[in-house]
């Protein structure tokens, strides 16, 4: 037994968040420094990456599409991770789907969405150019970037590092940004971190529990964040069509060493049928996934660390 878990809930990025550290006592000053550093880093990431803040670095970049813009290093790093993920997923994850997302109706924060019908989008083309050079970035003229499918995982990872920098003796920590989780180090009881996977068909219960020493977990799906007439639309755009995806599961959970990777791959697999998910995980053996179809039993694929002793 190392100590206790000190948790701090807060709201950021349009969702419910929490940070937690393993500490020897509730009054450990290092723990408070680490928790404060994590929240500051999440706020800094939101200011750099949010498309809903008119003065964010991402909004400035989109506004000046076609021109080089000096931006925060967090945005450069997040764009680099997003471009890598686009390549790794053969374009199933694409940070340049923002025009299609706006046309579908997701044009403001989720709390402010109305029930307007989707607008037709002419000439949408995925895979727009995004260039990076030091602390400068440029988006292809006419294109726009949304980091909704990777930003929380990226920020959770950054917050985890910020906690370590703030408290050199940090035993272990966890960052949860609306269900996108980054974790590392020791738990209060000395065992692995346990992350429950919520059942999208019954959110009060869990489908399974994962046991992890470090890394990231993310879930993407069409069970929540619905909008439009009769809440018939969802926010998962298929880059191939520019419209809300038809194929894909109710939810998919991905486990990866890098939390940003976990979220980006979850976004990609959330618009993919099961056989494509299976093929994808064959190419990336360090990933694990739990695919929950609209109908039928959930399918565990790849290196999914289900809690030891739970399976029988």
């Amino acid at each position: 037994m190392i100590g206790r878990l000190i948790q701090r809930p807060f709201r950021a990025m349009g969702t419910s968040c929490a940070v937690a550290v393993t500490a020897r006592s509730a009054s450990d000053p290092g723990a408070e420094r680490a928790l404060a550093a994590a929240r500051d880093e999440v706020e800094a990431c939101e200011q750099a990456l949010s498309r809903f803040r008119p003065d964010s670095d991402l909004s400035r970049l989109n506004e000046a599409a076609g021109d080089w813009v000096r931006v925060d290093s967090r945005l450069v790093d997040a764009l680099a991770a997003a471009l890598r993920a686009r390549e790794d997923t053969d374009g199933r994850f694409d940070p340049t789907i923002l025009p299609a997302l706006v046309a579908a109706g997701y044009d403001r924060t989720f709390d402010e969405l109305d029930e307007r019908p989707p607008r037709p989008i002419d000439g949408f083309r995925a895979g727009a150019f995004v260039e990076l050079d030091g602390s400068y970035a440029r988006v292809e003229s006419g294109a726009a970037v949304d980091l909704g499918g990777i930003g929380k995982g990226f920020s959770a990872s950054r917050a985890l590092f910020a906690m370590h920098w703030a408290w050199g003796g940090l035993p272990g920590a966890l960052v949860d940004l609306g269900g996108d989780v980054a974790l590392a180090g020791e738990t209060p009881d000395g065992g692995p971190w346990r992350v429950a996977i919520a059942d999208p068909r019954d959110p009060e219960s869990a489908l399974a529990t994962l046991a992890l020493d470090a890394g990231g977990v993310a879930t993407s799906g069409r069970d929540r964040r619905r909008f439009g007439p009769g809440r018939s639309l969802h926010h998962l755009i298929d880059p191939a069509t520019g419209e809300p995806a038809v194929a894909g599961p109710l939810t998919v959970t991905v486990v990866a060493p890098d939390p940003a990777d976990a979220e980006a791959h979850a976004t990609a697999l959330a618009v993919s049928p099961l056989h494509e998910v299976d093929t994808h995980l064959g190419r990336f053996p360090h990933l694990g996934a739990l695919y929950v179809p609209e109908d039928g039993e959930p399918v565990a694929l790849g290196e999914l660390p289900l809690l030891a002793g739970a399976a029988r």
Partner: protein
Amino acid sequence: MRRVWATVVGVWALLAVVAAIAWSNRPVSPLPRATPTVLVVKGKNGKQQLVVVGSQAPAHATTQTSPAPPA
């Protein structure tokens, strides 16, 4: 009389500190427990098997599609 009032105020101050500590350390949200669930586990050789999973161990966090914040 002044001593009695000082004691009362002292007790109230102590209760306020205890309440503040309890509030700041309250659990984030009720975490769901894994109830026995059937998963299809697909192995590397493509072979599938049905596995019942479930754990009584409480989770440290829950992954899910991002919910909107509570009002």
